[in-house]
């Protein structure tokens, strides 16, 4: 088993991080002057609308991309590339389709813990399959699993490499509401049991408040940046059905939402005012007898016109 982490008060420190891309000859600044600190043992959620550069943020922390400016320090060392100490649960699961559930997880375990014996590794893989309640599907291929089950596998694979920082990149956004609720509970349970330090990226404020110790809004891109952090001091374990009705939860939710909306207004202040839709008045043609063969099941003639000006 891996040794306990030495306690780093600041596990991850991002200072003034910016990242842009060139697309169609034009440079688009995705993230601008981003500052973020994650302490060991806490679960931070970053909430932002789609297209705000959330996945880019994860790629930067994971080391899959390098920032254009600013620094990212992990465990007091600058991030120079990807590594298993920063495990990513990808939005689209990223399971290898030719491997079974067991083999997908085993690939990760075998490459990160090569010093263990085969039996040790097998037992370890099995433990993680059990943790996400997939023992019955251990020999299935990803194509035979539902979206929720695939994301469980992906979660187990990442947890199994014992990352010091777990990066959850919108892990539940592709799932239906019910599956999402179930998996939220499981993630909450696992994070508490395993004392996980994590960064959850999501577009769902409720999810963020349910799981995180701290919620940070990300403004809409381009030039997205992080807002102030909102400490979520709601008692654990948090039960969604009870929590959502408490005044504390509602108050926090309103604060975060208000902030997201305000930041949205300020970034779009220079944008053109919304164009009013033309007022449309339906005009019915006068009824006249129709020859029988011309009758169809199309709706009767209704024409629309927009008045000028």
């Amino acid at each position, binding site marked *: 088993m891996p040794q306990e982490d030495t306690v780093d008060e600041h596990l991850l420190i991002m200072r003034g991080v910016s990242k842009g891309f060139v697309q169609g000859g034009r440079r688009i600044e995705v993230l601008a002057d981003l500052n973020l600190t994650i302490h060991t043992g806490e679960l931070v959620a970053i909430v932002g609308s789609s297209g705000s550069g959330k996945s880019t943020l994860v790629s930067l922390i994971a080391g899959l991309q390098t920032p254009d400016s600013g620094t990212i320090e992990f465990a007091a060392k600058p991030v120079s590339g990807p590594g298993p100490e920063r495990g990513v649960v990808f939005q*689209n699961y*990223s399971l290898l389709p*030719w491997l079974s559930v067991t083999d997908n997880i085993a690939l990760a375990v075998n490459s990160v813990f090569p010093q263990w014996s085969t039996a040790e590794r097998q037992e370890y893989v099995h433990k993680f399959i059990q943790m996400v309640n997939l023992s019955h599907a251990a020999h299935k291929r990803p194509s035979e699993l539902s979206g929720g089950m695939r994301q469980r596998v992906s979660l187990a694979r990442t947890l199994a490499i014992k990352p010091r920082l777990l990066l959850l990149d919108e892990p539940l956004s592709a799932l239906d509401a019910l599956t999402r609720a179930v998996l939220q509970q499981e993630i909450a349970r696992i994070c508490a049991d395993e004392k996980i330090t994590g960064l959850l990226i999501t577009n769902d404020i409720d999810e963020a408040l349910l799981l995180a110790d701290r919620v940070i809004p990300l403004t809409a891109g381009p030039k997205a940046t992080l807002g102030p952090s909102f400490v979520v001091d709601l008692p654990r374990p948090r039960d969604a059905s009870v929590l959502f009705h408490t005044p504390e939860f509602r108050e926090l939710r309103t604060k975060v939402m208000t902030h997201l909306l305000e930041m949205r207004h300020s970034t779009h202040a220079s944008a053109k005012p919304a164009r009013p839709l033309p007022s449309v008045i339906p005009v019915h043609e006068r009824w006249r007898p129709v020859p029988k063969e011309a009758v169809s099941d199309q709706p009767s003639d209704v024409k629309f016109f927009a008045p000028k000006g």
Partner: protein
Amino acid sequence: MRLNKLDWLWMPLLVMVGVVLVWSLSSATWAPRLPTPTKTLQDSRLYILEPFAKRGEQDQGILRFTWYSLVLVAKGYVIAILVGTPLGFLLGMSKLFSKGFDPLIQILRPVSPLAWLPLGLILFGRLESAALFTIAICSMWPTVLNTAMGVRAIPQDYLNVGRVLRLSRWDMLGKIMIPAALPYMFTGYRLSLGLAWLVIVAAEMLTGAPGVGGFLWQEYNSDIPAHIILCILTIGLVGFVLDRLMSVVENRLRAA
């Protein structure tokens, strides 16, 4: 037209009957040297009924000849795959490499086996080596191009998984890139096998090696046209079977 459940059976039969009719009519009218279907069957009987007989170097059962050809094809094909797959990987992985080699490949690809064989003879001297060279260089291209396409099509996500796990170069290749590109590679292998079989006849005709192609050319020289038809049918059937076998493997890989 209404579709019937047995269409797959009687439609091909109908077409074949039609072809035999046209064949019979042709040999009766404008192509007097073409043997009729019955004459073809009669002349070929010995070769079909004793498919593995060996009466002399150039007088053997049709399946025995086929076997010689298959062995030669297999050798050339293995060379094509061993050279073509790594080349395809290099093309797929490196844009620079791809830029450099693409024009060369596009130029060499359409060159006929008939053109390669003399060069093979000059290079290697021996007939069999020249034939292998020709089969390999002609059948290699689908493997090269499909492998390259397969490597380019590997989702970035799979590679990211490998990068986060800090897989070694070889593990990245063996555990992620090859399995991910395998369906494409097999499409290449199937097309290459088809080409290798196509080339064998040309190679054997020129080298005179014993095999279906060699037999065909010899029987043309001995003026036994029935055997030419026998050879053509055999070549076609064998090619068809090879393609089916490969596509079975290919489909299993795709389903995986």
